[in-house]
Each structure stands twice: as structure tokens, then as C-alpha cells.
């Protein structure tokens, strides 16, 4: 009789109505247990040998099992060819064995599957299939096509036999690990010598506000190398387009910059937009001193004392400083009131609106117009006036309560003395 087990048709050694003896039943059970075990495992002779070899040829069954390709049912032969189920044909060129794959052939080999939408759909319908075409437009891809085998190919970033999905935090291409992966080549001065490009990007990025957001706060949406440079189509953004890269996230700042007097000035001077003031990889937390005439001013790089730009910068800085001081003053008085047990929760909540206004004013800086910054600051100042008043009134109320308490205690104390004297008088 035929039965379907795990998708395969197998012949069972009994038929309905057959008189089963105990040994027959036992044998049947043993056979039934063996079939799925046998069907669930495909023999891989490659691992038999490679697990016993030394690096770089070593690969254990456990390591291979962690690979996303192995998990999807692919074997060594999927990339290297040959017949891993046979001892004789495992490394037989007639069975398609390719052995070591030349670096130059890797993108095309990976692309064979990863560019095939119909094939990839079987495993992950949402996975893109334009990696190879993107790679060909990248600096890496162009140089590889030009015969430079030192540039990054698929396996340099994704690893070879330890490929994991990008969503896996252990993956070399997980957002948390991308900067480190890129730094393997781009922070290596010897490796980059031939290309004449700097190797401080990783060190700079590690100091940046973007790295802090990613690594310290765990914000996976924070930018890393590939966010600005692209991943498979990696290339440095040009001077003319770098502002487009930043504006992907910093939309409003970009719009303000587009309408600002700096746009034309920067273009005529051949300066890139955002990075002129904020730098590229070492982007620090912006502060109000950047727009001032003080020590850490960015404006004084181009503007000289007395010109309209520096007058505007001073005006903007003064507006921002004023609101920040008002917020600090309000916060201090409300904290004092709260520590005294006064209920100032609503005022503390309102003060958040002032902080929001300060953030908006700081964003408005990118328009480089003091009047627009003043407009946002005014909204915050109105809030701080109310919150400061609330704090002052709370402290006045606290003092009033303490005065009331003192009077009450005096009255209670006098009553206690009176009662004591009364008792003494009665008992004498």
C-alpha cells in the first residue's frame, strides 16, 4: 500500500485486513520512524571533510546551519557546484563543481539568484532584486568592472558562510553593525592608500550625534554609512546633492535653507549645503554658539565683524539665548515649588510648550532670518511668562502656608499650656 509521508510517496509493508503479528507491527513502526528522518536530511559530504580542515577551509555543520541560505534549504553546491550527496562526485567538475570562486565573479554569482524576482519570491517576497544592478552603479562595482579586485564585493559586507538576514543583530549588515563593517576597509590606511581617500570617516562618525542615536539610544532609524551613501549602490554624494541626502530626514531645515540667502551664496562659492556648517561624518550636537560671534561660531568662518550676516547671526543668537534663559528660570522656580510640595504640574506641563518653541526657533535658524526666529521665540516667551508667574505664585502660597502654620502652632501651643495650667489648678 502507498502512503504519503512528508510530501513523498512511500510503500508500506502491510495492507488493510492483513493479520498483524507483533514482529511485523514492530518492524512497521521502526520503518515509519526511519522514513521521515531519512527524508528530512540531505547528505552533505562537503561538511564531512571541511569541518575537519583548518582555516580558511574550515566550516562546521553548526556554522553552516546558522547561515540564512542553509536555513532556506540551499547547500554548498548551490554556489560551489558539485554533488555533495556523493563521495565520488562531490568535487567532480563534471558534476559542475567550481571550487573556489574568484572575487570578480562573486557579484554575478550572487546576482544569479538575487536578481531573479521569481526565484527570490519563493523565499522572501519582500526582498529586493536590484542589488546587482545597483552594485554596478556603485564605486565598488565600477572599479571591479575595471579590473580592481580589491574593492568590496557581496561577501566582504555580508560574509561568506555566515550570512544572516539584515534584521538579525548578529548580521554584519544590521544597522548597528554597518559602520563597523564599512570601517574594515575604509578605516584601514594601508588598504585605502591606493585610492587616496581619507580613513577618518569611522572615527568621525563614532563621535557624531548620529552614532550616539544609533549606538547609545538604540534608534535603528538613525543614519549610518549606507543611509547617506547607499548600500549596494554605494557612492559618495557630490557637493551639489549632499543637501538632498540630509533633507531625506531633515525636511523642514532643508526647505528653510532653500529659501535662505545662503543658498545662492553657497552655490556661487561652490560650497556644499549642510556639511559646510555641520561637517559630514563628525556631526556634533548643534548649539547656539554656532550662530554667534563667540568662540565656537561657524558664521565667523565666512563673515567678518560688522557685515550684515554677522549682525543677523548675533540677533538670532540673542533670541535663542533669551528663550533658553527664560525656560531655565521657569524650570528652576517650578522645581523649587514642587520640592516644597506645591502642585505645579500644569505649569510644568506648559513649560514643555516653551521647550518646543525653542526647538522650532532653532530649526528656523536654517532660514537665517532673525525676524522668523523671533517669531518662534515670542511664542515660547509667552509660555515662560505664564509658567514663571505660576512658580512665583506657588512660592508665595508656600510662604503664606508656612506663616499660617506658625500662627496655628502658636495658638495650639498656647492652648496646651492653658490646659496644663488648668489641670494643675484643678488638681491642686
Amino acid at each position, binding site marked *: 500500500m502507498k502512503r504519503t509521508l512528508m510530501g513523498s510517496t512511500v510503500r508500506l509493508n502491510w495492507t488493510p485486513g492483513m493479520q498483524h503479528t507483533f514482529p511485523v507491527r514492530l518492524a512497521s513502526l521502526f520503518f515509519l520512524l526511519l522514513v521521515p528522518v531519512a527524508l528530512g536530511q540531505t547528505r552533505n559530504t562537503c561538511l564531512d571533510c571541511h569541518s575537519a580542515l583548518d582555516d580558511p577551509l574550515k566550516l562546521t555543520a553548526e556554522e553552516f546551519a546558522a547561515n540564512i541560505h542553509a536555513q532556506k534549504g540551499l547547500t554548498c553546491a548551490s554556489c560551489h557546484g558539485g554533488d555533495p550527496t556523493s563521495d565520488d562526485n562531490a568535487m567532480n567538475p563534471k558534476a559542475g563543481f567550481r571550487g573556489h570562486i574568484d572575487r570578480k565573479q562573486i557579484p554575478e554569482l550572487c546576482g544569479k539568484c538575487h536578481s531573479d524576482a521569481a526565484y527570490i519570491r519563493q523565499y522572501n517576497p519582500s526582498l529586493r532584486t536590484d542589488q546587482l544592478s545597483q552594485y554596478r552603479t556603485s564605486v565598488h562595482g565600477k572599479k571591479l568592472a575595471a579590473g580592481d579586485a580589491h574593492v568590496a564585493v557581496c561577501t566582504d559586507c555580508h560574509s561568506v558562510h555566515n550570512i544572516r538576514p539584515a534584521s538579525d543583530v548578529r548580521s554584519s549588515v544590521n544597522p548597528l553593525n554597518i559602520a563597523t563593517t564599512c570601517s574594515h576597509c575604509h578605516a584601514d590606511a594601508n588598504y585605502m592608500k591606493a585610492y587616496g581617500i581619507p580613513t577618518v570617516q569611522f572615527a568621525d562618525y563614532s563621535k557624531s550625534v548620529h552614532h550616539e542615536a544609533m549606538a547609545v539610544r538604540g534608534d535603528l532609524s538613525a543614519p549610518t554609512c549606507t543611509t547617506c551613501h547607499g548600500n549596494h549602490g554605494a557612492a559618495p554624494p557630490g557637493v551639489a546633492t549632499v543637501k538632498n541626502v540630509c533633507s531625506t530626514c531633515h525636511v523642514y531645515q532643508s526647505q528653510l535653507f532653500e529659501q535662505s540667502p545662503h543658498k545662492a551664496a553657497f552655490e556661487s562659492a561652490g560650497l556644499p549645503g549642510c556639511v559646510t556648517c555641520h561637517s559630514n561624518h563628525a556631526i556634533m550636537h548643534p548649539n547656539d554658539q554656532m550662530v554667534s560671534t563667540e568662540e565656537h561660531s561657524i558664521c565667523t568662518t565666512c563673515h567678518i565683524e560688522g557685515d550684515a550676516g554677522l549682525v543677523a547671526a548675533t540677533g538670532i543668537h540673542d533670541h535663542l539665548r533669551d528663550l533658553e534663559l527664560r525656560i531655565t528660570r521657569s524650570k528652576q522656580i517650578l522645581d523649587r515649588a514642587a520640592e516644597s*510640595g*506645591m*502642585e505645579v*504640574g*500644569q505649569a510644568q506641563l506648559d513649560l514643555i510648550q516653551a521647550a518646543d518653541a525653542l526647538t522650532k526657533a532653532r530649526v528656523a535658524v536654517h532660514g537665517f532670518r532673525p525676524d522668523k526666529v523671533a517669531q518662534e521665540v515670542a511664542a515660547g516667551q509667552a509660555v515662560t511668562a505664564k509658567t514663571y508667574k505660576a512658580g512665583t505664585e506657588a512660592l508665595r502660597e508656600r510662604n503664606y*502656608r*508656612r506663616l*499660617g*502654620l506658625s500662627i*496655628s*502652632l502658636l495658638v*495650639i*501651643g498656647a*492652648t*496646651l499650656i492653658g*490646659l*496644663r495650667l*488648668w*489641670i494643675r489648678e*484643678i*488638681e491642686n
Partner: protein
Amino acid sequence: MSPVARVQSWLDERFGWAELIAPLKHKTVPHHKLSYWYFLGGITLFLFVIQVTTGILLLLYYRPSANEAFESVQYISTQVRFGWLVRSIHSWSANLMIFTAFAHMFSVLFLRAYRKPRELTWLSGALLLFLALGFGFSGYLLPWNTLAFFATKVGTEVAGQVPVIGPWVMMFLRGGPDVTGATLTRFFGFHVAVLPGITTVLLGLHLALVQRFGISVPPRVENQWECRLNERQEMKFFPNFLLRELMAWYTALAALAVLAALFPWGLGTKADPFAPAPAGIKPEWYFLFAFQTLKLIPAKVLSIDGEVLGVLAFGAAGALWLILPLVEPKRRAGGYRAVMAFGIVAVTYIASMTVYGYLAK
């Protein structure tokens, strides 16, 4: 005839006033070196009166619904003239009342005032303490802030651990499977109607029993007095004892004024049923020893659920506490020592677990 005498005469003709207050004039109170402990009951009563008075004032503005409770308490604390004072006194007085009730109960235990014929006085007093805890638990939720919300959630979950009736009790307390506005409404009902009603009856009984049997004298003092009759001292209830009681009340009032004015009771943030419970959440201090005990009990003890075991143990201890005067060994001399030992263990356990609960993370 003076105006006061005329009023007295008028009342006497209509109520028999002189006859009514005659026992008070003759009532005496034992006077010895431990007499000060007698004031604790009076202070608890005084604080209860404050609770009732301030509670009625709060009722003028409080709104018992999930949408309005927090805002109405915020309004009382910030907008109503002296609202902050009334609320602060209500909250501090509640805590002081529970403290003095505990102290009164332990003083009665260690002075052995629960002895025959005062068993019913003890029983009504112990029940009044449990009611005070019920007041505390139900009142804590009423401001509908985050801490209160999660404390109620945990507290009602503990009630749900009681075998057989636990789930029903939890459902009854919450008014549904979760702590919601329905819980707030029924806790308000318990707090301002059910518990005060029962308390008034029990308090009346407790005071009537105190009047009926008088104030107990500790056995050691009684023995001394029996040996040396000239050492026996008593004071008149009116005015000597009452004036001293008044001094104790004024002292409690002063303490209450200092706490309410210098440490006004906070409001916290409005409860958000969808927010996660804040880290390190703890109940009010008078439930902390029980909470900490339940935390320390292993998940399984001899295949019995740890929390169930803890709840059962506390239930048994509470029941034993109620009937303590009845179970005291009386046949042999010194049988009371077992009760004293039980009291010492209880007070040490409650104090140490409360401190541990505060220090524990």
C-alpha cells in the same frame, strides 16, 4: 440665674440632662505610670472625626469617574480655597489614624486589656482596624493617579488569590475583570457609604463597651494595688482625664498641621490604564509588610502556589488575631505568655518587613 444655668435648667426639664451627665461626673479613670497609653484610643477617635469632617468637605468637589476624578482632585488642590489643606489633612490624618489604631491595638495587647470581660471590646476594636485598612485601600484609588491605579490592580489581584471565592471577590471589587472606571465608582461607594456606615455602628458598640466595663488596669499594677491599697490612684473622667485627652488631641492636631503644611500630599500623574506599571511600585506603608512577604514567598511551596499560601497565611493570622482573647490559655498560670510572644513576633515582623519593603528595590 446665669444664662448658662438657665439653658441647663431648660434642658434638664426636657431631657433630664442632669441625670444623663451624672455618670460622667462620677466616672473615674485609673491613674498609674502606664495611663498615657489610654490616650491612643482617644487620638484615633479624634483623627476619625477629622477624617469624616474633611471627607465631607472633599465630597463637595470630588467627582467619582475615571474621566473627572484626577482633574477634580487637581482642582481641589490648586483652585479651591484651602482645598489643598483639606485634602492634605485628610490624607495625612488617614495615615496617622491607621498608625495610632495599630499602636492602640498593640498597647491593649501588651497591657492585657483584652481580658474578660473585655473580649468583645477587643473584637470590635480589631474589626475597626480592618475597616480602617479598608478605608485606606478604597480611598487610595480615588485620586485616580498612576500609583493608586497600579496599587489597586496589585491589591485586587492578591484578593483574587483566595481559594474558591478569590476570583469572585476580585470581580466584585473591580466591577469587572480589570481595574476601570467601574472600580473607581464602587470604591467611592465603599469609601463614603458602606465603610462609614459599618464603622459608625461598630464604633458606637466599641465606645459603649468601653463605657460599660471602664478602662482596664494592667495585671501587674492591679496586683500592686491589691497588696498596697494606699497606692491605688484614680482620676475623675470629667474634667481631669478629658482635659488630658484634649491635650493629646491638640498635640495630634499640631503634628497634623506640620505634616499637611510642610509636606502637602502629592497628586502624581493621571492613571493611564494602557501604560506599563512604573518600576518599583509599592503599596501604602500599612500594606507593605504583607506585600513584601508575598514577594519573598517562592512561586511554589510543596506544589502549592506561593501567593495562595501567603494569602491563606495572612487570612489565618488575621482570624486568630480577632479571637485572641478567646484562645488565650487560661487553665495554667502564665498562659498569657503565649499571647504576649505572638504579639511580640507580630509587631517585630510587621516593623521589620515594612522597613525591608521600603529598602528593597
